[in-house]
């Protein structure tokens, strides 16, 4: 299977994730969209690793997954704290941290 297919799929997933981040109005969905973007990148890494015949792509994917797990933990904790504060999950409700 040529590498192009993997990369196209990775690009599509990344675009879907990006679109989710910009278009959805729910913080949890935003976090999910970020996960999709991360995994799109993971797919690209693994594909390149296979293409080049090394394990580097797989190794870095584990790193990304670890970081993603930590990010999800912290992110969800923040979301809960924000929800308690404002009774809302809309990111537009949290704009008081500005000039």
């Amino acid at each position, binding site marked *: 299977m040529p590498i192009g297919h993997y990369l196209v799929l990775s690009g599509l997933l990344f675009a879907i994730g990006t679109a989710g*981040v910009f278009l959805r109005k729910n913080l949890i969905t*935003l976090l999910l969209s970020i996960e999709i973007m991360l995994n799109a990148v993971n797919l690209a890494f693994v594909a390149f690793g296979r293409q080049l015949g090394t394990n580097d792509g797989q190794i870095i994917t584990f790193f990304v997954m670890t970081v993603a797990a930590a990010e999800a933990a912290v992110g969800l904790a923040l979301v809960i704290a924000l929800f308690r504060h404002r009774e809302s999950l809309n990111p537009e409700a949290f704009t008081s941290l*500005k000039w």
Partner: protein
Amino acid sequence: MLALIPLLPFAGFLVNAFFGKRLPKSVSGGLATLVMVASFAIAAMQVLALMGMAPENRQINQTLFTWITAGDFTLDLALRLDALSAVMILVITGIGSLIHLYSTSYMHEETDSEFARYFSYLNLFCFFMLMLVLGANVLVMFVGWEGVGLCSYLLIGYYYEKKSASDAAKKAFIVNRVGDFAFILGALLMVVTFNSLDFVTVALAVKEMPVEVTFGTLSLITLLLFIGATGKSAQIPLYTWLPDAMEGPTPVSALIHAATMVTAGVYMIGRNALLFEHAPITMQIVAIVGAATALFAGTIGLVQNDIKRVLAYSTVSQLGYMFLAMGMGAFGAGIFHLYTHAFFKACLFLGSGAVIHALHGEQDIRKMGGLKKHIPITYWTFLIASVAIAGVPLLSGFFSKDEILFETFLHGHQFLWGIGVLTSLLTATYMFRLVHLTFHGEERFNTAAAPGAHAAHGAAGTHGQIPDGEESAAAAAHHAQHTVHSAHPVHDGHGHGKPHDAPWPMATALIVLAIGSIAAGWINIPHALGGHANLTAWLEPAFNATNCGQPVTTGALAGIAIEDCLPGEGGEAADHTSLELTLMAVSSLVAFAGIGLATFLWLKNKQIPERMAQQYSGIHTLLMNKYYVDEVYDATIVQPIKVVSTEGLWRGFDVKIVDGAVNGAGYLVSGVSIVLRLLQNGSVKTYAASMFAGVVAVLAYYLWR
């Protein structure tokens, strides 16, 4: 042993400064006087030891420690007693002791702590003055030089609650700074030129150098040092602080502003005699400035009405004489006059203090007169000192002044000699004007306010401004509340509060100084009168770096003749005996003429001076206002500095440029921020979008570059 001479007064200072508040007056004053007497005793012993040595190696050195080491330059904190400093330490500790004794009585109405403060300053002054004269190098001298300036400041401003006193203190300090700055520059130039500040080392180095005919390094060094001396010794152009310094207590005027500190400049030139001899241009300047100051101050002294101010101008004038002698290369004569002047001027100041004391703070001689029968001791001592300063034969002032005039004439400066003689006439005139107006004639003083005002005399004792009638009437009225005597305070005759003569400590000091005024000159009776000029011979090695054998080349500058050896030696004086005798006769006549003139004008025909004052009101006003020198300085120096400082440096540079830069930086940041902070709108999505755009931009750059 040598170090004890200055350290004893210093110990007195420490005790009075730290424990003075708790000590009764008898202890603090007694201690201060005692340390001075002890210091005098040690000084006398050291001088006796010095006299036992051979003339060419008369020196006692004491190095306390190495002060500065930098590369090949080292400097010790060293003291040196030689013929010249011997004269000075005897004057300082001797007259200083008398003035301390006098002060214990004069200041007795101060509170305990103020009394101790006064004596601690006075002791500190003596310490610094002794360091000044005993210092073996310029830097030790400079420490003393600055220290006496500080003490002068503290003591002029002793009555610091009085505005005029604190102003006068500041003026003295600031004017002295101008001179001291030049002095530092001169000392630095000495380091650069000789790589040493030790007086003997420098003198020996200078000895090998040719006399500087054109203006060069030596001339510059000496000129800078002399500018320092004009500040400390109140010469034109920096003399203006000394008359104002009379705001201090009168014994202070006697000690600091007549006998010791103001002569530091003369001493400094004597100390660097060889250096100055090698710079004939500076010597000429010194002589001209000295003569000009002598005449200038003498004319002002003629019309002043404040007893202390007359004496202050007289001091400036006599210091001018000393500088004239120094400028002639007659160092011995200058120091001799310094020494005799210390006696009679201290006596005059202390006498004026006794008069002020007797009249409870009155300083205006127009409100005195007829005091002779009330305060006889003061009168006679004051008279003796006046006769001495006037130059009447066989008293101390006659010998020293004559020697200066003789040397001036001998060096071919007939014009400066003429100025000297004229000044001598003025001296005799204004001194006897003072004597007549104060002690003779009708009584013009007002005793009414006396009993109550007595308590206030300490504070009022140094009125620089002449208190007018209203003020004394107000004071009298004020004291009427406390005193049964003053039922009707003004103009009620002489029934009570008669002027009282000096109490014993003051009288002792006056009498000893009066004897000194008579006899001090006898140690240096010139050869022409059958004497041996002992003092001149004694001082000679000190001016020549202990060796007179090696001739100093004659100064080639027109009109300046520098003698091979210092004047007053047997052979030379003998050649001029007839000239010297003639000149003596002239100046004796001048002295008597001055006294006679003063008697004629201010005792016998009092209407004449008044009529003259009206007729020549222009000159009279000019003299009364001291040639407007203070006003000229104010207009040309003080005001421009003020304007430049407030308008230029403060409102211009500081406010606009310094503050402007600081505030401008703030305004710039906040101005830019007003725009930039709009980017931070709190919306997470906007941040994400900008991050995304940034990543895309970076990627695009790398892909398509």
